[in-house]
């Protein structure tokens, strides 16, 4: 990004929008004074309250709830920022409970930070920022990793805290509907400067269509659900079926007594709050975890966790929540060809079937990136690649874990259209998700883990 002229007045509440790669996060980090010298070039002038940004002058909350907890106890973590700024001990003792009250986190000060949910951890990070009494609060997609309840939790906590302290607010987020009521100004960035700037209603009315085209979630302009050409046949024989299934992780049963059938041409949505066992169930159905109890059968070959890894490829394809966990090769092309090559190793004298992999590269707009390292792709590109790697071996059942998590509207529409195509081809999909739009667009049946 270059050539940006922007002034934000004290007490303003700004929603910062822009397509991915437009420099929103970089701008926030520069304002927080945490942009290292090795993280790019800078020209022009940036001031915060008349002075260059310095560590701790603005409060910054990031996206990932796991990676910004600093200390093991809630009270210590909230006090951390104030301690670093040299706030006297008695004053910190007053600020910590006040900050926790402001974000509505009603837990003991010695509670372990490990025991908090994602939404609670984000509110903890917010409390830590508030305890520094910053003039500006900077939020970088603070709700992108949360379930719907967590999103509301954090949004309301921010609104309350900002109203109470009068702090200036700058929030980056591509789901406009979440923040539209909290902010009084929308600023849209492009790599070449400002694209739009003004009160939310005016910006959305004048430029809503353009913003939506750039992948921003504009209220009233959400992407349309694709048409399904072939309705799911509820009587088709099940590919995977579970009776009285119990699932768990590391020896602890998370959920028991589950009955379900996965049928060709049909999408089963598994929903429920964070921690309800959606991912654990998805991994069990995908043959990646042993069931904790009950019966599970896939393709008449017994429980898939007993299969060889290679046997999974043409039958059960799994796509993980974090694409980076699944990348094993140096280039996008090698990554997508890995599955077909492994499959060929298992066949007698088999040549890998790479034509389908090539088609997928083109179909998912990854062909220009074929020589890029998977870890250097953007979030949307990584998601498309991780789906493509699973599809390259044409599995009959696709198991998706939060496929649309944190994706912009364009990637979302592509993923949904692709899923609809797969269903029309007669493949089955299991999707663990808390994306209500995704469920509404595609789900034939729904399993709610309450």
């Amino acid at each position, binding site marked *: 990004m270059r050539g940006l002229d922007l002034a934000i007045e004290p007490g303003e509440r700004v929603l910062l929008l822009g397509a991915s790669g437009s420099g929103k996060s970089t701008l926030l980090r520069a304002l927080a004074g945490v942009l290292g010298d090795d993280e790019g070039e800078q020209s022009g002038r940036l001031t915060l309250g008349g002075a260059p940004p310095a560590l701790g002058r603005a409060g910054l909350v990031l996206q990932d709830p796991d990676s910004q907890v600093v200390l093991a106890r809630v009270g210590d973590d909230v006090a951390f920022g104030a*301690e*670093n700024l040299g706030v006297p001990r008695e004053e910190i*003792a007053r600020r910590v*409970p006040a900050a926790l009250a402001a974000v509505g986190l009603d837990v003991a000060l010695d509670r372990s930070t490990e025991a908090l949910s994602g939404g609670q951890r984000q509110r903890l990070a917010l409390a830590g920022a508030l305890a520094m009494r910053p003039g500006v609060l900077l939020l970088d997609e603070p709700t992108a990793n949360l379930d719907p309840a967590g999103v509301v939790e954090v949004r309301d906590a921010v609104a309350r805290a900002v109203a109470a302290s009068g702090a200036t607010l700058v929030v980056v987020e591509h789901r406009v509907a979440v923040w539209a009521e909290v902010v009084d100004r929308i600023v849209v960035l492009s790599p070449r400067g400002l694209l739009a700037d003004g009160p939310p209603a005016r910006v959305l009315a004048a430029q809503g269509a353009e913003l939506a085209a750039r992948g921003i979630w504009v209220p009233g302009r959400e992407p349309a659900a694709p048409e399904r050409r072939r309705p799911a046949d509820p009587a088709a024989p099940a590919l995977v079926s579970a009776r009285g299934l119990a699932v768990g992780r590391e020896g602890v049963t998370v959920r028991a007594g589950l009955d379900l059938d996965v049928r060709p041409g049909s999408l089963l949505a598994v929903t429920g709050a964070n921690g309800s066992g959606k991912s654990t169930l998805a991994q069990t159905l995908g043959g990646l975890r042993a069931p904790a109890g009950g019966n599970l059968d896939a393709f008449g070959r017994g429980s898939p966790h007993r299969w060889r890894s290679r046997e999974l490829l043409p039958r059960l394809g799994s796509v993980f929540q974090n694409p980076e966990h699944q990348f094993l090769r140096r280039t996008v092309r090698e990554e997508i060809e890995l599955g077909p090559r492994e499959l060929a190793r298992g066949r007698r004298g088999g040549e890998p079937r790479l034509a389908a992999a090539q088609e997928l590269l083109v179909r998912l707009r990854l062909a220009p990136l074929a020589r890029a390292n998977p870890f250097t792709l953007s979030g949307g590109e990584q998601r498309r690649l991780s789906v493509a790697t699973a599809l390259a071996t044409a599995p009959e059942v696709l198991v998706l874990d939060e496929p649309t998590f944190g994706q912009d509207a364009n990637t979302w529409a592509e993923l949904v259209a692709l899923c609809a195509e797969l269903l029309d081809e007669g493949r089955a999909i299991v999707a663990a998700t808390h994306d209500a739009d995704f469920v509404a667009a595609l789900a034939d049946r729904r399993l709610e883990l309450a």
Partner: protein
Amino acid sequence: MSGHGVTAPARLESPAAGIAGAAPVAKLLGALLIALALVPSLDPVSSAVALGLELALLPLLRIPPGRLLRRIAPLLVAAPLAGVTIALYGRTSGEVYARFLLAVISDGSLALAGTTVLRVLAIALPALVLALTIDTTELADGLAQTLRLPARFVLGALAGLRLVGLTMEDRRTIARARRARGVGDRGIVGRVLGTGFTLLVVALRRGTTLATAMEARGFGADVPRTWARPARFGVREWLVVAGCAAIGALALTAAIVTGFWGWGVR
């Protein structure tokens, strides 16, 4: 959840009481004193006296027996193993009882073996048991405030320690992801190499985010840091240090008086 009327006390001190609640720095210092007293001599008397005193004082820590046993279990396996090795291969002297290839069991090697077992137990028991009651956050408080180690270093290490747990979870997830990609049946070498790179990238991402989050909260700012919770070093802490020093001193004195001091070294 209502955010108003939070009644949590504005108290950041740790609640543990008794000797078990003494500052971690005192416990480390105490374990170090015992080790310093016992290391120079290889005699059975100093080790036996120290171990006896330690066992007598152990109940003061009020550690539940089950937890205690679990923690010292490796020690109970390792110490006899060390003894057996010394009995077989230790310096031969006195009457020889058995020979097998290079292994010779003699009066001398047996005595040395017994002493070794006593010594390993006497030095490792206080270290393990005191470590069992150490809270890492309090240890960091003590290292930075009592021993005046640089806060940047201590807090950085403390925060990094938290990432280790997340990395273990990532490792399991990556192993499952490899299985899903069809390469989960490869041998241990392929698995370690393949998992290692992905794990490194994911851990570096987390580390970078954590570092950014810490800096954004003023970590490393040019201001003298304050501490919300004072690290204590009072009567209780001095008692722990003095107690451990006494164990070491009594053990040494007993060895010197009985003429055993320096026995195994000669």
